[in-house]
């Protein structure tokens, strides 16, 4: 018995750890996503529930997950298990400008649908007032509409749970590390799932250091820019440390420190920067505008990438060594901070983020050296 909804409330909501990934939404009438928050509508007293079972901020046993999904214990403590690392960008100029970096995520999704590897992809688009919303994309137009990053967290997986599905589609999902972790938990859950998780054939994970809280960030944008339409938002990591926002026709630079206060509290305990349970993980390449870093983790991920290369959907290059080691460092730093934050909140002992003591020690000492 996992404690069900009451445990979700006590361990996740009450500690303000929910990141609104949407994994628990649309499964039952008690939870709903609203303006970037997961809201409890009524009390549910079941001793066991999918909500808490799937929650990426609920109990996580990395070893067990790893064993079930990759066939071995959790060892690669920096960026997770990888088969192949390189940098790439989409060739088709259609993605340029709209896509966040190299457009690889959109291009791969487009290819997977075109080739019939998947029939539909669960993506994330901007709803009214920039509200992130899960979208079921079945063609290029849908994918285009969702291209680009939204830096507030939203209930992408709610769309996966909700459908509508015919029941025979093969499904792809693009998501943040929390969502990818939730998918891993869904896949390995011992509960009767009643979700289409068994038909998820491709998971593309994004890199993510944190996401912002929708309501407070929106209030900030409104205060800053009034009713000006908000265009692309991008993050320039250290040394720049800027959030670049196009408002109206102008590009504005906002020091990251000004938005840090809006980071979701649940992001501080996240130990995963690179979506370690994906088929393919994609992020930026620091200092290389218009390129993506790719981490290929599974055979089927590898197949899709190979296909993309052979059809010249993407062009790829080796990732320079310094960039890879920097990525490893950043990822390890996120882990160390998460371990501290989890410890502060008393979650480490309770089995949130189960890592061996040895691994924890190693992470802490190595990231200190790196920092």
């Amino acid at each position: 018995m996992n404690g069900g909804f009451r445990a979700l409330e006590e361990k996740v909501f009450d500690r303000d750890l929910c990141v609104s990934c949407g994994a628990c939404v649309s499964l039952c009438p008690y939870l709903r996503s609203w303006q970037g928050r997961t809201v409890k509508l009524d009390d549910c007293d079941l001793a066991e529930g999918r909500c808490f079972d799937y929650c990426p901020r609920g109990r996580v046993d990395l070893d067990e997950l790893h064993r079930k999904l990759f066939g071995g214990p959790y060892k690669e403590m920096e960026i997770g298990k990888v088969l192949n690392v390189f940098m790439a960008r989409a060739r088709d100029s259609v993605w340029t400008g709209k896509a966040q970096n190299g457009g690889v995520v959109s291009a791969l999704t487009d290819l997977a649908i075109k080739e019939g590897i998947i029939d539909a992809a669960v993506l994330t688009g901007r709803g009214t007032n920039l509200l992130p919303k899960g979208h079921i994309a079945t063609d290029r137009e849908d994918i285009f509409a969702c291209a680009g990053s939204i830096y507030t967290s939203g209930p992408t997986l709610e769309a996966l749970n909700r459908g509508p599905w015919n029941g025979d589609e093969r499904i792809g999902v693009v998501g943040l590390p929390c969502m990818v972790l939730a998918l891993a938990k869904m896949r390995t859950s011992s509960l009767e799932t009643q979700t289409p998780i068994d038909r998820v054939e491709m998971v593309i994970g994004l890199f993510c250091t944190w996401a912002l809280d929708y309501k407070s960030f929106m209030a900030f944008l409104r205060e800053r820019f009034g009713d000006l339409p908000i265009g692309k938002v991008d993050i320039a990591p250290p040394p720049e440390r800027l959030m670049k926002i196009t408002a109206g026709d102008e590009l504005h630079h906002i020091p990251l420190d000004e938005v840090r206060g809006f980071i979701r509290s649940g992001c501080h305990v996240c130990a995963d920067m690179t979506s370690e349970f994906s088929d393919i993980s994609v992020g930026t390449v620091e200092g290389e505008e218009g390129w993506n870093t790719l981490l290929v983790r599974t055979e089927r991920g590898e197949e899709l990438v190979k296909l993309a290369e052979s059809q010249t959907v993407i062009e790829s290059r080796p990732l320079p060594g310094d960039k890879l080691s920097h990525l490893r460092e950043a990822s390890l730093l996120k882990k160390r901070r998460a371990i501290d934050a989890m410890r502060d909140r008393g979650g480490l002992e309770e089995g949130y983020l189960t890592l061996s003591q040895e691994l924890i020690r190693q992470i802490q000492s190595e990231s200190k050296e790196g920092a």
Partner: protein
Amino acid sequence: MSIISQDAPGKTVLLMGNEAIARGALEAGIKVCAAYPGNPSSEITGSLSGVADEFGLHVEWSVNEKVALEVATAASFAGLRGLCTMKQNGLNVASDFLLNLNLSGCEAGLVLVVADDPGALSSTNEEDSRAFAKLGDFPLLEPATFQEAKEMTKWAFDLSEDLGLPVLVRTVTRVSHARGNVLLDELPRLTKKPLFDTSKPRVALPVLLNHELLRDKLRRAGEVFETSPFNFFRGPEKPELLIITCGSGWMYSLEAVINLDLSERVGILKIGTTWPLPEQMVLNHLKKVKHVLFVEEVNPFLENSVKEFFAQNCGDLGVKRFSGKASGTLPDIGELSPDIVISRLQDILKVSYEPLPAEYALRAKEISAQLVPERPLGFCAGCPHRATYWAIKNALALDGRNGFVAGDIGCYSLGMGPSGFSQMKTLHAMGSGAGLAGGFGQLNAFGFDQPVIAVCGDSTFYHAVMPALTNASYNKSNLLLLLLDNSATAMTGFQPHPGTGKTATGHEAPILDLEVICKALGAQVEMGDPFEVEGTTETILRLLQDVEGVKVLILRRECALVRGRTQKKLFNMEVEQDLCLGEKCGCNRLCTRVFKCPGLIWDTIADRAGIDEAICTGCGVCADICPSLAIRKEVV
């Protein structure tokens, strides 16, 4: 023909206390009756409305108690007898007028019947309305039997005319709502042309002069009361204990004395004219006893009056012991009962009494529990209020700012309990929900950011919400009022009101359009259907979050009971049990555990939800909340 209009002097009929009061008013030859409904008073005016045409009366449901009293008073001023009825809370509303009317006095007999609700069985308080008799120097009568209910009401008109002062009659639930034999008298059929005597202006001024006159009238009432047949003594010449009682306390005391076989030891002084005290009579009885027990409902009114009087005269009377509510001998909250009086008499007089074998009471309880299904206090099946509160609950949860409902008086007051998902957090007088919400709306400037939703019913709106709404508009408050228009005064028994197009006597009336009124009072008005739960939720959220100022959302759906009488079901409902998830993750009995419409049942054999055909009214709302689309609605 109505039971109260039988022209059969000398005949004995079984009447409800409130019908007896109505009959008394008819025998007194009233021409006008005005009231606002409220338990336990409603049947007085309700039954008079049924005979209004037959007797050529004007009977009306006024929009509130103050107006009702003014309407009845106008009749008195013009020389026609007028009756006004209300429940105890209503007297507070009427009191502003009442406490000027004492000074101006009245012409023809004017009687105000107030029905108190000891134990607050259907009220928000258990106020003792008798305090107003002392406060405003009004003669006060309290019937103890059904016959007295009729006789006293009738006599109250004579007394009022005699004194030129309105007379209060106070009844309580157990007198108003029980039934007993009543011997009928003649029904006068007088015709008189009303005329207001302009040489006698009815104004409170000059206050001091009128106040003096009022005191005189009250003294005169006291003198009349000394010989009133409504006051009498039963018992031995020198009792060990004297019970002084009034109203329903008389029956309780009598029952106790008879059951305990104490007729030789205990005397009962039953007083029907409780203010001002028939002092000489009281004095005579006090002389003969050492110990007095007061038995009366709600406050120690008689008890304290007698004690005050005693304090003036204690030199002659010597030491006495007084027991009652003020002394802590009887409970000073809740309703009395014969059992309570019996147990106190046992204590005081050291007698033992075995009412019934203890197991009998236990068995009776067990058996009745089997026969009577458990019914928690809640909304009826198909009640639009349940759907409304569902939408409110979801809207406030989604809004996430710890919002709440400022409640008001009506069926929807049940919104404070599980049936309204415990959304209502304030509940006071008629109209207070909107008034409070308007006040909360002024606190935003101080950083208050909880959303507040006021609710009120249609009848309550006309009664007391209009000033609150006007105030909110004028003072630029931020207010969301949900006007739950179910086209009835449902709580008190479906009396018509200004929105229904019908008068108390069933005649046509202009409909005073709520939407038009709210707009005229400066509100932004939207219409909605509470059965459209999702749409209503969204509208509420939008109005709370995006629209500033005074907003009224009129949610219109007829009361399920009214609908049930006049129309057929909207839908035939059915649960497709294969689809029902029951207690499984994904549902966990949302419909029978949380939504809890009585039309839904939990089928313990199938472990699935089902529809109770006999109770379901076919509103279709549960089909919209079922997460697995297992509840089907089919248009009838």
